[in-house]
C-alpha cells in the first residue's frame, strides 16, 4: 500500500516537476526595438573600432617608423568612456562625504586632467616629496589665470607624481559657490567654501587643504602684472594652520599666467553679472566658446619644504604680528620660487 502511495505521490511530483516553468517575459518596451543584428553591431562597434585603430596604428608605425597613434592613450579614452557610463548608472546609493565630495567620480575625471597635465601643459613638478603621505597639511599657492586651472593641476600633480596619491581639498571664494554649474562641479570634486570653520574641519579630518590667499585678486590681475604676487589677505590661513596644528607647504606655480592673457577687465559687464571681473583676452570674448580654450603654455610646479607651523602653540594664533610674519615668509618663499622657475623655463610655450 505504502509503496503504491509513494509511487502515486512520486508520479504526481514528477508530473508537477515536468511542467514547464512559466517564462516571465518583461512587458514590451514602448520604445522602438531595433532588429537583433543591428543591436549586436551596436554592442560590438566599440570593439571593432579599437581593433581597426590598432591595425591602423601598426600600419602607420611601419610606414613612418614612429608611434603616430599611441594605443595606450586610446585605451585610456575607451576606459574613461566606459567608467563614465558605469558611474551614470550607479543609482542614488553612491557615497559622498559631508562636504558633498564624490571621490569615485573625481578619480574618474583624473584621466582628463592627466591629459592636460602631461600633454597639454607638460607640467614639470619638483619637491613633491615635501607633501606628507599621511596627516594634515595646508598647501598655499599663488593664484593666476582667469579660471582656477592651477588648483586642478596641483590636485592632478598629487595623483600623478606623489608616492601616496591623495585628494587635495581646495578652498573657494563663496562667490563661486553661488554660481550655477560651477558650484555643483566644485563641491562634487571636493572643494568647499573658504571659511575658517571649513578649513579647521577639513584639517581635523587629516586632509590636505589647498588655499590661495591671494583669492580673486590673484586670478583677476592683468597680464602686465603677471608673476607679481598680490597681498596675502590678513594671514587668516596662518592662524588656522597654527590652531589646527598643520604644517604649511608653500607652492609656486609657473605657467598659469599665460593660459588666458588678460589685457583688460570690463568691469561694467562684470558688475552686471555679479562677477568679480570680466576678462578681455586676445581670444575672449571675440571667439566665443573657442576663447575659453586655455593656451598651451609650459608649466612648472614647485612644492617647497614645509613651514612647521604645527610646532607653534595654538594660543599664538592670536598673536597678529607672528601670524603676519609667517604669512610674509610664506609669500616670499612662493615669490622667490616663481622667479627661480621662470628662469628654469626656456620659453613661455616650450
Amino acid at each position, binding site marked *: 500500500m505504502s509503496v503504491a502511495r509513494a509511487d502515486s505521490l512520486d508520479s504526481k511530483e514528477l508530473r508537477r516537476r515536468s511542467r514547464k516553468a512559466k517564462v516571465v517575459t518583461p512587458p514590451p518596451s514602448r520604445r522602438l526595438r531595433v532588429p537583433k543584428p543591428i543591436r549586436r553591431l551596436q554592442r560590438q562597434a566599440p570593439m571593432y573600432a579599437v581593433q581597426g585603430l590598432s591595425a591602423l596604428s601598426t600600419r602607420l608605425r611601419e610606414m613612418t617608423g614612429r608611434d603616430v597613434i599611441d594605443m595606450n592613450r586610446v585605451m585610456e579614452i575607451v576606459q574613461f568612456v566606459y567608467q563614465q557610463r558605469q558611474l551614470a548608472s550607479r543609482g*542614488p546609493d553612491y557615497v*559622498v562625504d*559631508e*562636504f558633498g565630495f564624490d571621490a569615485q567620480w573625481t578619480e574618474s575625471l583624473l584621466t582628463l586632467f592627466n591629459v592636460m597635465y602631461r600633454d597639454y601643459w607638460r607640467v614639470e613638478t619638483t619637491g613633491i616629496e615635501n607633501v606628507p603621505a599621511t596627516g594634515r597639511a595646508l598647501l598655499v599657492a599663488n593664484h593666476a589665470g582667469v579660471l582656477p586651472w592651477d588648483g586642478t593641476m596641483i590636485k592632478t600633480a598629487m595623483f600623478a607624481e606623489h608616492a601616496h596619491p591623495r585628494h587635495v581639498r581646495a578652498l573657494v571664494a*563663496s562667490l563661486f*559657490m*553661488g554660481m*550655477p554649474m560651477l*558650484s555643483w562641479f566644485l563641491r562634487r570634486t571636493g572643494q568647499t567654501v573658504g571659511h575658517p570653520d571649513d578649513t579647521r574641519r577639513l584639517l581635523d579630518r587629516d586632509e590636505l587643504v589647498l588655499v590661495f590667499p591671494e583669492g580673486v585678486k590673484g586670478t583677476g590681475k592683468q597680464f602686465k602684472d603677471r608673476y607679481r604676487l598680490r597681498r596675502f589677505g590678513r594671514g587668516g590661513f596662518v592662524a588656522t594652520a597654527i590652531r589646527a596644528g598643520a604644517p604649511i607647504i608653500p607652492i609656486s606655480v609657473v605657467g598659469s599666467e599665460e593660459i588666458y592673457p588678460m589685457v583688460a577687465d570690463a568691469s561694467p559687464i562684470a558688475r552686471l553679472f555679479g562677477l568679480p571681473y570680466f576678462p578681455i583676452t586676445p581670444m575672449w570674448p571675440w571667439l566665443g566658446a573657442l576663447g575659453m580654450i586655455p593656451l598651451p603654455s609650459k608649466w612648472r610646479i614647485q612644492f617647497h619644504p614645509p613651514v612647521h607651523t604645527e610646532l607653534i602653540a595654538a594660543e599664538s594664533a592670536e598673536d597678529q604680528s607672528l601670524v603676519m610674519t609667517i604669512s610674509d615668509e610664506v609669500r616670499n618663499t612662493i615669490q622667490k620660487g616663481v622667479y627661480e622657475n621662470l628662469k628654469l623655463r626656456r620659453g613661455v610655450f616650450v
Partner: protein
Amino acid sequence: MTPPALKSHTPQRVLISGVSNPLGAEVARRLATQVPTLFGCDVADPVSAVEAMDFVHADTRHAVIGKLVRQLHIDTVVHMAVKVDSHGDDRTVHETNVIGTMNVLTGCAGPSSPVRRLVVKSSQAVYGASPAYPSFVTEEVAGSDRHAYGLKRDLLDMEQLAQEFSLRTPGCRVCILRLGYRVSEGTTLGQYLSLPIVPTFAGFDPRLQLLHEDDAAEAVVRSALNDHEGVFNVAGDGIVLLSQAIGIMGGRPVPLLPFYGRWIGRLAMRAIGVDLPGHLAEVLTFGSVADCSRLAQTFRWKPAYTTRAVMDSLARGRDAEVIDSPSPPQEYELQVFLQRRRRLAGNSLRGTPALTLRK
C-alpha cells in the same frame, strides 16, 4: 550670586502650547509618562487624546498663558505653537510666531511667575541658505542676513524675544531648539521630494540635512526634562544630495527651475501644487547643513536617525507609525468624558479638577 530658583529641578507641572500639531502631540505622548502633571493648550482640537493630559482651548495670540501659568502653578512651559511649515498666509504665521511667543513670554515673566524652564521650538529655517555660509552652520550664524524677510525674519524676531526674556528673567532657563528640516508626509519638503518628476534649480545639487519626527520629539522632551540653556541645532547626522534624495524616492530630478529670479521657479512650483516658501527655495539651491556638535556635547545625545535613514524611512512609508491618524471628534470627547468621570470617582492623585475652558 546665583538665584535659588536656578537649582536643578525635575519638572512637576508642564504646559505644552500647540499640542494639536503632530509634533506637539507626539511630545505630549512622550512627556505624559515622565511628568506627574501635564497640561496642553491649542487653538484646534488635539489630533489624538493623551489620557494623562488636561487639554484646554487657548490661543497664544491672546494673553491667556499668564493666567493659565499662575493658576495651574506651571513650572515648565514647552512652547510648540510656532508655525514653520504651514500653508497659512504670512500674516497668520507672523501673528502666531512673533506675537504668540511674545504673549507666552510675558505670561511667564514677572516675579509671581512659577515658571522655571521654557522650551521654545524654532527651526533651521532661521538660517535660510547662502553660499557664503560655512559648510556647517553653527548657532552663531543666524542673524547675519540683514535682509531676512518672511518666516526667517519671524523666527529671528521670535528667538530674539526669547533671548531677551532669558536675560531679563534669571530664574528661568530658556532652551531654543532649531529643529532641522523634516520630510514626513504633509511637509512641503516631503511633498516636493515625492513628486514623480522633480523640477530642481538648474545647475545646483545642494546637500540636505534632515531630522526624523521621532528625533524631533525626543529632543524637545529631553530639553523639557533636563537643564539645558541656550540655542541648539537639532538635525540628523550626515548629508544626502538633493539628486540622491529624489533618487531614493524613485523620482527623477529635472533641472528646470531658473537660478536667476528664483521667484519664477516658486511660481512654477505653485502651479504644480507645491508651495515652496522663500527659505526652502534657498535651501534647494545652496543647501543647508547645521553643525550639531553643541547639541551632542550638552545633551549627551544625538538624533538616532541619520539623514540617509530619514530618507530611507520616508521612501518605505514607515513614517505613518510616527504620527497617528487623527481620531474622530466624538472619540476625543468620549475620552475626555471618561477621564473626568475617573477623576470625579475619587482618584485624587491628580491635584486639579478637570479643567475645560471652551470658547
